[in-house]
């Protein structure tokens, strides 16, 4: 999908300078590994029939979540899709709470009431995961409008896929955000597919987000979504712009999902070799190399890997041990009074 020029533009920001610094780089690495390990575990648990319902993994797309979360300040808000585990984890939500929700246990983020597609952790700024394509783009506008109105400095970030750019709400939200100059960042994770259909088969332009930015008076920004440094720097610029009152950004991150669309999908529709080519550009592999190039010791990296594995193992055990939700929560929190009474 990406032209040679895009690729060049996409990797331009990944030189070996040190504006990012070691601490942030280790954070970005760790975030990616947390996502990788937790998602992989979710997949294993699904095979054991312990993850219920559906589940949409971000294996291979970790750099986008890590790069953006790394650039966020406390108070910034994330709006995610059903493919939101990565972004939820990246904001610091515990693996246990995420896996617990996927396993529909009482220790889950929403005690099993929402499920895998609706991860929410308001205390971490994760203002919901939305399962109707496009719906959360206007909602993120609203959160950004509140910040603008209140003179607050937080920014709302809305993550979605390439396929989402073809639905009406995308268009309405982008225009609305641009006209009102809202502090909102729209992040399109272009992983080349909607569910099973290649995005190029159903989209009038090669870059579903980037090639449409001009429709909203916005800059065309298309970056390598598998390089967390590139994503991080791009995100920083967009946050700076938003906080300075410069309005919205639309950022297309080129990436790829290693697994199928959802747990039900063996992803047979991929052309041969495509997955392998993208695995060569695995974001975690890239980033491990980067750390080494910056002289970070192998054992520091290994310690992170080991620690994350332990965290995920512990979370898994905790979830397996956790009870299922009690049935009395079935009718709580429909209304603000805590109940569900539609009549007296």
């Amino acid at each position, binding site marked *: 999908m990406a032209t040679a020029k895009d690729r060049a533009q996409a990797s331009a920001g990944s030189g070996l300078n040190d504006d990012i610094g070691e601490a942030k780089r280790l954070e970005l690495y760790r975030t990616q590994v947390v996502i990788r390990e937790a998602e992989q575990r979710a997949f294993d648990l699904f095979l054991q029939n312990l993850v219920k319902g559906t589940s949409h993994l971000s294996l291979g797309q970790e750099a986008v979540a890590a790069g953006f979360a790394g650039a966020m300040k406390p108070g910034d*808000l994330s709006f995610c899709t059903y493919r939101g585990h990565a972004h939820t984890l990246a904001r610091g939500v515990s693996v246990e709470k995420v896996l617990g929700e996927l396993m529909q246990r009482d220790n889950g*983020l*929403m*005690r099993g*009431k*929402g*499920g895998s597609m*609706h991860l*929410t*952790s*308001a*205390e971490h700024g994760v*203002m*919901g995961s*939305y399962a*109707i394509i*496009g*719906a*959360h*783009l*206007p*909602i*993120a*506008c*609203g*959160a*950004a*409008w*509140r*910040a603008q*109105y*209140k003179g607050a400095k937080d920014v*709302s970030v809305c993550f979605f896929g390439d396929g989402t750019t073809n639905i*009406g*709400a995308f268009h*309405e*939200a982008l*225009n*609305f955000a641009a*006209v*009102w100059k809202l502090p909102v960042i729209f992040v399109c994770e272009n992983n080349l597919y909607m569910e099973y259909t290649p995005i190029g088969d159903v989209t009038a332009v090669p870059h579903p987000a980037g090639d449409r930015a001009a429709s909203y008076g916005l800059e065309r920004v298309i970056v390598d979504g598998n390089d967390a440094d590139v994503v991080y720097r791009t995100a920083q610029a967009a946050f700076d712009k938003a906080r300075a009152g410069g309005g919205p950004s639309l950022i297309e991150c080129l990436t790829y999902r290693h697994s199928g669309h959802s747990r039900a999908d063996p992803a047979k529709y991929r052309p041969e070799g495509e997955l392998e080519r993208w695995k060569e550009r695995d974001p975690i592999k890239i980033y491990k190399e980067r750390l080494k190039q910056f002289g970070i010791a192998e054992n520091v990296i290994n310690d992170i890997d080991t620690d994350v594995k332990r965290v995920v193992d512990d979370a898994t055990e905790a979830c397996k041990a956790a009870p299922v939700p009690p049935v009395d*929560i079935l009718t*709580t*929190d*429909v*209304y*603000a*009074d*805590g109940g*569900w*009474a*539609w*009549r*007296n």
Partner: protein
Amino acid sequence: MAELTYRDAVIRGIAQEMERDPDVVFLGEDVAKAGGVFKATVGLFEQFGPLRVRDTPISEQAIMGAAMGAAMTGLKPIAEIMFSDFFAVCFDYIANEFPKSRYMSNGQLKCPLVVRTGNGAGSRFGAQHSQSVENWCMMIPGLKVVAPSSPRDVIGLLAAAVRDPDPVIFFEHKSLYATKGEVPDGEIVDQLGTAKILRPGTDATILALALMVPRALAAAEKLQAEHGINAEVVDVRSLVPLDTQTILGSVARTHRLFTVEENPRLCGWGAEIVSIVADEAFYDLDGPPVRITTPHIPLPAADNLEDIVLPTVDRIVETVRRSLGS
């Protein structure tokens, strides 16, 4: 006390709440500088300024989504959808987003907003600008739904809606905008979920909503005068929460139930109420509960056709009289 139009009551109701709480903001198409297509928001832009009263593009999904995002994070937005028929272009917010986010998040998210809209027939606008769609909202778990019939109720229920911590769909009736009523001075705050017995009676309970309320009242007078039938008229006002106590109480006294619904027949609000009464007050009923509705058809534009398609005073009178066998 002052006599106010229903239209001006909308203005006063919004202004009352915006004066009280700086977090109340208002957005919609042509609502600010132009004062709204029904002139029901005239002066708000001048009074509250361009940051609180905002014109939007023709983007109903963006309007609803923006209201929701703002509500989730601390504002109390009032969003206008010009004609309730346009709920169909932003129905995802009404059906899937507003009412479910609190539940799905196990109480982490809130959605305290009001959607105001012009509902109902009578303007010869035809099938896409005249619908009564209160049942589109009543059927969705997690919403609250009100539809005032008088200027006073407009102010009081709007205030209650704005102060409510849940999403409230507020139906204004286009054909009531020009009607007048007495409104007390000072702040008015009513209560959601409360029906009002507007005319006590002993022989039959007539439930009505919005534009159907004055018709039900007129019918009751005629029933009394011409047929000696003393009907109780209840303004349902709030579909969710539903004041079943008042309704069941009335039926327990009159033993007969009639609903006067502007919505087309199938799955109208009257069906729900009849099913509640038939289940819980079966032995109170002395005869069949009867629904008087708009026939189950799209609405015609022509004045002579539109005039007969909604329940009329005469149709109400005839139906009740015949059913009571007088």
